[in-house]
Structures are given as C-alpha cells and as structure tokens.
C-alpha cells in the first residue's frame, strides 16, 4: 500500500497528537514516522490496511485533535490501527531507538564456560544449603 504525500502529511499531524515532543524525545513527525517506517509498519501488518485506511480517511489534517478524538469515540478499531501503526513506526526509527537506548534485538557475545557471579559470591550456595524442596515419591 503506497500513500500519497497528502495522506502522509495527515498521518504525521495525527501521529503528533499521539506522540508529541517531550523532553529529549522528538514528536512523531520530527522522527519522520510518516515515511519509510510508516511503509514498513503497514507492510508488516497487511491485516491492518483496511482499518488504518478507514481511520486515516476519517481524520482531517486541519483539525487533527478534533478528528482523532472523534475517531476514538466513533470507530475504536480504526483508531487502534492508526495508533498502533504510529507508535510502532516511532519506535522503529533509528533516532528514537538511540534515544531510548534500544539497539533492537541483538546477539550479544558471552562465554558459556565463564563461572557466573552467583557461584562465586555464595548466593546459590545459600539455596543449596536450605536443602531439598520436593516431596519424594511415597513408597509402597
């Protein structure tokens, strides 16, 4: 699904109501949610196309607050689709991920043979010393 410039601008205005600038965090449109990340979000959720399209169509770029609030009251499914796509697109941008300290799902190196802290500092030893917890199989 490819959106025209007007729809992208409208989406940006609506997304800014849901995700305004705050402290170090940029508003949705400053993080460019309306471009590549919007496309990626929609591409990965074709099931939302219909609700998103309907929801966005019901909104107005000139009265973003009024129209998103009306959508929330009158078409919750449409609202949820627009909201989820906006929030997801926002947290997929590099800029926002950098700011919140999220590198994405990564594969950090570790040494499986390294002795874990809990074996050195006596924490696990305390569990072992408290003894077995299980109830054994009754005999006979």
């Amino acid at each position, binding site marked *: 699904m490819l959106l025209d410039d007007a729809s992208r601008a409208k989406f940006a205005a609506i997304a800014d109501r849901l995700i305004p600038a705050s402290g170090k965090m940029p508003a949705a449109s400053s993080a460019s949610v309306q471009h590549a990340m919007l496309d990626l979000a929609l591409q990965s959720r074709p099931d939302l196309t219909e609700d998103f399209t309907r929801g966005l169509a019901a909104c107005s770029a000139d009265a973003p607050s009024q129209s998103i609030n009306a959508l929330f009251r009158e078409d919750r499914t449409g609202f949820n689709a627009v909201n989820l796509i906006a929030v997801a697109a926002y947290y997929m941008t590099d800029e926002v991920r950098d700011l*919140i300290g999220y590198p994405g799902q990564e594969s950090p190196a570790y040494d499986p043979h390294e002795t874990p802290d*809990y074996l050195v500092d006596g924490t696990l030893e305390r569990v072992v010393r408290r003894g077995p917890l299980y109830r054994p199989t009754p005999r006979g």
Partner: protein
Amino acid sequence: MSGKTGGARRDEPVDVLIVGAGPSGAVAARYLAAAGLSVVALEQGHWPDAADFPGRKREFELAAQKRWHPNPNVRDLPRDYPVETSASDINPLMYAAVGGSTTLYAGHWTPFLPSDFRVKTLDGIADDWPFTYEDLLPSLEEIEREVGVSGLPGNPAYPPQRAFPTPPLPIGKAGRKAVEGLDKLGWHWWPGTNAMPSVPYNGLNPCVRRGTCMTGCPEGAKSTVNITFWPHAIRSGARLITGARVREIEVNDQGLATGAVYIDENGRERRQRAAVVIVCANGIGTPRLLLLSKSKRFPDGLANRSGMVGKRLMMHPFSAVLGVFEDELDGWMGPFGQLVESFEFYETDASRGFMRGAKWGAMPGGGPLGVTSFVGSQIFSAGEGGMVEDVWGENLHKLVARRFNHCLVYGIIGEDLPEESNQVVLDPELTDSDGVPAPKLLYKVSQNSHDMLRFHVARCTEAVEAAGAIETVVVHQVRDTGWHLLGSCRMGEDAATSVVDQWGRSHDVPNLYIFDGSTFPTSGGVNPTATIMSVALRQVRRLIAQRHLQEAA
C-alpha cells in the same frame, strides 16, 4: 508389524502412521524408524524456515502481534484450524508445522516433579499416574541429551539426576535482579533451565540471547524437533508428509485401526494405511480427530467407550507480575526462555486455601512496543469523555522511559486440576480451510486456580518488591495463555474411566495409540514439554519391544 525398513512409497501400507510432527510425533518417528519399522507421519503444517522468523527484523514486535501470534484464531492462517472459544475462559495457543507448537514455545525446560505423579496419594485429590517420577527418569535423561538442554545441575527442587548436556545461559541483569529479591526473602531460585543449548549441539547453534524465542528462533538455537529429531528420523527412513490434514482414522470390522484419511495440499483426499496408528496432535487436535472418527462401531468417536475423549482438558491458567526498577536491566535481551526459576511455593500447603502449586519463571521485559501492551493487555484506556492526548501523548513517553529496559516479569504456571466439565467438543458450524469441523472448548477457570494465582501473584509481588521494584503491575489470568494443552484423553488402567493405558495404547482399539500430552492424568504446575517428550519415549520403547505381539489390521 513387518519391520521392513522405511522408504515406503506414497499410499503404500506402512507399519506405523503418526499424526502430527511436533515433539511427541517426532520422538515416536525417530525411535520407530531407527528400530527398522516403516513410518509415515502426516502433518498439516509445513517445515518452518528460520529466514521467515521476524526476530532479526526491525518490525519484529509488530509481526509478533499477528503473523506470529500464538493464537491460531488471531493468525488466521489456512494451515491452522480455528478453535471456537466463546465458552472458554482461556484461548488455546498452538502452531501447525514440523516442530508443532514448539515453533513458538518459550523453551522453559521444567520436567514434572515426583509429587506430580502422585497427586491422589499425597494430596487426596485428582489422580495418581500409572507410573512414577523414577519410572520416567531414564527417558527424561535421554531426551535431555537429544534436546541439548542448558542448565546447572543440583537444583534442590528436584531429586538428583544426570547433569544437563550444556552449561546454563547467562541470567543477565534482569535475572540478577530477580535473584536479589528471592535471596533476601530466603526463597528458592535456580538459574533457568532452557531448551536452548549454550554451545553448538545436535544440529543446534548456541543461543545468542536474541530474545525472540516466541516468534521462532532465527538463530537456529531454540531446540525444536525439526532440527533435533526429524533429520535423524528421515535418515532412518521415516517419511514425513507436510500439508496433510487428517480428517479421520478408519477402522475395520474387527475394530482395528486401518490407517487415516487425509486431505493433501491440493485438496485431494488420500488414504494412508498402516498396521498401527499413533496420534500426536496435542490436547485439542487429538480429541478432535478421535471425535471426528465416528463409525458404526464407534458412534461416539474412536476409542471413546469410556466417554472420556475430550474431557478433563487442562490449560494452566496464567498470571504475570511485572516489576519496574530504577536500574537498567537489558530488558530486550534473551533468552525468553526463563532467566531464573523458583519452586518455592510449588508443593501443596493446604493452609494457603488451595491445593497444589505453581512454578515461577523470571523473564526480561521485552522491546518498547511490548511494554506498551503488556502481555497482550491494553495499558491505556481512556475513560469516556477523556481526551486521546491525555491518555497517549506525554504518558506514552513517560511509560516507555519508566518501563522499557527497566522491567522484569514473573510468569506463573500453576497446576490446573482435572474436571470433566472442561472439554473439547466438535463445533457444529465452524470448520478449517478443508471443511473439517473445528473443535470448540468448554472451559472455566476453577476456584482452586483462582485462589492459587491470587496467592502466587501476592508472593511474586513481594519478590519484586524485595528486589527494589518502584512499581509493580499485575496481569491476572491472561486470556491468551493456553499454551499447555493437556488431559483430554486421559491415561489409566481402568478402561471405564480412561482412554489409553500407561503405554499410550487405547483401551478400545488395540492398535491405536496416543503419545501426546492429552493422556496426562494431571497437569503439574510446570511447562510440560520435557514430560511430554519423555513419556512419548517411554511409550515408543515399549511399542518397539512388544512389536511382535502387536495386533494389527
């Protein structure tokens, strides 16, 4: 059974037909084929392709909510069958593929404990199993070697046993935080045991803590039978037919199973004949198939003279407690998987007001989108008349700043006691994409489960508070958590009250077997796959040993 070595051509009769290619079906296929029997397995799903799993992709969290959702009704894929759940408190979760539901499982490796096999003797409720923990232990130890379990030996929650084949995974910052609280309270904990090797093992790569286990492991590190069992089974001659939906098991005039009718990928109906049929389609798929297999001889469904097919469904109602901390906890890092487990309140203490207990698994909090929709529940709900901006807006930023990377989640798996009113039946209208009737669930969470979860939620809250949580969030009895499907074709020695005997053989049809979790008389308070695979191994060993005595059509 002929014992002719594998390689049967399409539709040629075989020694053993297996329905379902998840863990239980894979255990059966691997050992039967290695023993020289000809084996065909029919699986409605396909081989999973690790390249399709979304875990390496930026849009991972969005995809997790639809295409890779564990609820088949949400995924809505043609290879799944839908489940009618309007009369159930819990939605069942599963996946159709080679590897079955473990394609999406979290890999918590928690074998049943000794008391789980003796509930009646010890606690005076429910039932004992026909065998004990000790009877099963050799099979468990063998399965653990094949699965490549990672963990630390010596857990005092369990009797002593053989060491795990690979060292434990790092518990990470979130795991250490959980330990802080449990240590302060003097409560049991142990580094998580997981079905994810920490070093290369039996075709698996080592787990690299990507943390996307529940949408499929893109690293080939989560232990699933498409990697660990099926390649061996196929090398020994087993034939696995995917895209094959079984709609009926047929019987002859003597009341013996003759094989199954299935619908292939092109919608064509086919027939696979076999001397022995083993159903491994899980606690919902198995009773569904038996109920679908009605005949003159078995008007109430196959192997259902006891009337127990479909009854006593257990799904482990689930609650979760999330602790938010000042410290950064690398909340997106895996395994996802259990970092730390606790069995402090596992055994019965009647003074708590309920029977049996639960195991806790400490997990990381997940990505930024995850913290805005914790365990599937909407975090924000605007009161009528409230402004959208007041609910999202600033709040969203605050919530993510506070919770993302600062959370630890305790998942509570509590024992679900068997009740005949909790059932799998056939829905009169709903069908799968091949027009085969879909199952319907009648399931209510029991008072015992309610009380148990309330108690455990309170203790988990104490555990995160002892660790210094600045905020706790409880999600009580989450609906989308029917990941353990057990009990609906109960095993027992009495043909009047059970469907199969301890070897998985049905009382009514001597060459029909069930090897999956539907045979469990009780559900334990732990994730069941370790026990499902071990029981299947014990049963298939017996079938192989007795094959010369096996009656067949």
